């Protein structure tokens, strides 16, 4: 019996069914498959290329795409969703004193240049501190100061406001209010543990 006879003897499944079959095989297989390998696993008479093409179309715009590389086929995450394939482990760290002070100065004096920050802090500001605050997206570059040297200025961002629960940077309490809140007096000496912890908790409530 010739091949043609066989073809008419065993009718191939309808194309929709072939597509389901290709879908299931490609889903379950542990490696990309050649069309010929697929064909070998399908019932006699199936049109693999046709099934692949229509399956590929079906997955267009979906979260998963049917990709061809060379003559091999495989399901792959849509490139624009690859960020979902990352699992983040989160580690919480306290900001360094230099960073929080720099951030505070920027918040209160924005727009402010690096030299001005250094002047207020009385120590130089390291590149890393600025970089970290930029990375956190709590500060960004403002307009250049229209003075000789046109130094860059720093301002705080929307993300900064969101993180600290502020509507605007103007809502930051001024020195007088800080003093009233007890934050200006009894400043602990550097390097000694802060004994005013309970006060901090009290204050926290006001801002949450």
């Amino acid at each position, binding site marked *: 019996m010739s091949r043609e006879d066989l073809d008419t003897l065993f009718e191939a499944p309808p194309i929709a069914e072939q597509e389901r079959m290709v879908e299931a095989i490609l889903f379950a297989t542990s*490696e990309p498959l050649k069309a010929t390998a697929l064909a070998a696993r399908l019932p006699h008479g199936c049109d693999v290329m046709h099934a692949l093409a229509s399956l590929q179309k079906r997955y267009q715009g979906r979260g998963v795409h049917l990709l061809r590389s060379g003559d091999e086929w495989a399901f792959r995450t849509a490139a624009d969703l690859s960020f979902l394939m*990352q*699992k983040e*482990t989160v580690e919480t760290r306290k900001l360094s004193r230099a960073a929080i002070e720099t951030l505070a100065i920027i918040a209160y004096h924005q727009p402010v240049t690096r030299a001005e920050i250094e002047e207020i802090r*009385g120590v130089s500001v390291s590149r890393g501190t600025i970089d970290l605050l930029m990375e956190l997206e709590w500060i960004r570059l403002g307009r250049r100061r229209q003075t*000789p040297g046109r130094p860059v200025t720093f301002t705080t961002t929307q993300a900064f406001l969101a993180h*600290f629960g502020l509507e605007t940077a103007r809502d*930051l309490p001024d020195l007088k209010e800080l003093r009233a809140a007890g934050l200006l007096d009894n*400043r602990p000496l550097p390097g000694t543990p802060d004994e005013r912890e309970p006060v901090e908790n009290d204050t926290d409530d006001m801002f949450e």
Partner: protein
Amino acid sequence: MPDDFLIRDRQERIAAEALVVDVDGYEGPLDVLLTLSRTQKVDLRRISILQLAEQYLHFVEAAKRLRIELAADYLVMAAWLAFLKSRLLLPPDPEEEGPSGEELAAHLAFQLERLEGMRKAAAKLMARDQLGREFFGRGEPEDVSLKRRVVYDASLVDLMRAYAGVKTKDDFEPLHLKRGAFYTMEQALERMKGLIGTVLEWSDLEDYLPEAWRLDPKKRRSATAATFAASLELVKEGALELRQADTFGRIEVKRRTTSDPLS
């Protein structure tokens, strides 16, 4: 043959053989009873427990005669069934405490029905489509890449306290002469010389104060004076022009160009 009376027909013989196997396979007396009950060919709910008890006792007898070692629980069941049989046959003694023979028989029937029910359910469960047999998971899972993210934690209070700390720092500093608060004319001249090339338009002298000398009023005053003195010096050299619109007005500077006649 002494055992002939046990094996009444072929089906029963097969059942008996199964029993022997099951004893070896250690499926327990309840299993034996369930197998025996099938020979009654009735619904388990209408089974004759008395007949079943007799069948079981015969089975144990036969096993003994065949020198098949029976585990203790088979013999315990045999003793219990013998007791049950006597309860079922004798009229109930009103003096006696405890459940009646009928109650015990009903419970045994329940146990058999329950075991059979579990066996059928187990068979149906195993006949279900199973993962890795009829249906399959993703064969080539894509790796989820692990990314470590550091979250910096700072509260508004931290922020304000840091600012308060910075602003009150001076109060806590030990007393020392702050020589750094004086900006010399030499420094100013150096700086102005470097900058005048860019000053093509009139612009405020104050814009030329060094960055770090603008905020502190003392430092600002020193820097302003030095920068003004340096500007005068540069005017004298013919490099700079200087003007003030009115008294205490802004002092403005501009680079002097050759096309610009001296005013």
